[in-house]
């Protein structure tokens, strides 16, 4: 009788120890899974919160510069350091359509100012408009269509507009 009780006691303790070990192992795995999930959600949140839209493009036939106005239509501001270099700007027509380097010393190059930075913080806040100047290494031709595409630093929610001359 006492042998049976001792044996059952040992089994019970073994089960408790085994379940604790399993729980510890599973908890650690679940925590890792949770963290991965939260990271994925945060990444998606950033993607849907950052959105920009080209509102107007202007350039003259014979000129070598183009102005592009881009509005922050998202719900998240874009820090000053994330506006220029991390963004992608494409411009051109036909086979000449390609990436324009930011703030390059030689053309082609693009630069920007915030047209209505009312709080003066240098960040591209929601509702604010970026005035982009593209300097080209060729002159625009009349009768041609030039395509401009802008992607914010997230690489998502890019927008394209056409400049017809």
């Amino acid at each position, binding site marked *: 009788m006492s042998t049976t009780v001792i044996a059952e006691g040992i089994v019970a303790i073994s089960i408790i120890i085994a379940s604790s070990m399993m729980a510890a192992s599973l908890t650690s795995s679940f925590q890792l899974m949770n963290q991965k999930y939260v990271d994925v959600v945060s990444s998606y949140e950033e993607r*849907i919160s950052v959105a920009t839209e080209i509102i107007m493009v202007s350039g003259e036939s014979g000129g070598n510069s183009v102005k592009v106005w881009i509005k922050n239509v998202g719900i998240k501001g874009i820090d000053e350091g994330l506006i220029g270099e991390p963004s992608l700007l494409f411009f051109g027509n036909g086979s000449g359509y390609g990436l324009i380097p930011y703030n390059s010393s030689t053309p082609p190059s693009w630069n920007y100012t915030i047209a209505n930075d009312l709080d003066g913080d240098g960040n591209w806040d929601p509702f604010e408009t970026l005035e982009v100047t593209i300097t080209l290494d060729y002159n625009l031709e009349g009768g041609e269509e030039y395509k401009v595409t802008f992607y914010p630093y997230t690489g998502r929610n890019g927008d394209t507009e056409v400049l017809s001359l």
Partner: protein
Amino acid sequence: MGSFGLVVASIVLLGVLCLMTFTVNETVLTSSYSLLRKYLSVGEAVGREEIRIEGVSKPDTMILYVNVTNSGRDEIEAEEIRYMDVMVKYESNGSVVSKWLTLDQDETSSEGWAVESVALGGGEELFNPIAPDLSRGCLDPGETMTLKLWVEDEITGSGQVLVVSPRGCKAYGVIG
């Protein structure tokens, strides 16, 4: 006592599993709900904002008056009107000029735009009147504001006015 031990062990095991499942579900649900809410708030705000240009008049070769109506479901706060984009494209002595104009309520700069007045159905606006310095008030649905635009060079031919609402809704008008 042995059976009691097994029952306790099983309860402990079940309890731990339930707790873990609850924790995981709670995190997943909270994160998903937060993402969904953000997604919907962006879409709703953009979908409800709408403006329309009712007409453009040119009393002078360098001045335009543009009537912009809030045709959406939400009011546009006066503070947000500051972030509207007002752009013009016109012919001036043979060349085409495009400009993004700066808001200048005091009309001191050589080029710019200002909110001249706000009306509802031709009469005075009734709710949330907009202060002259745009510090308070709203452009409520159905109300029309008259914008005054002035430029440095003469508008000698036809052209276009583009007004963009704070959340990116575009409205076009024609300069006759």
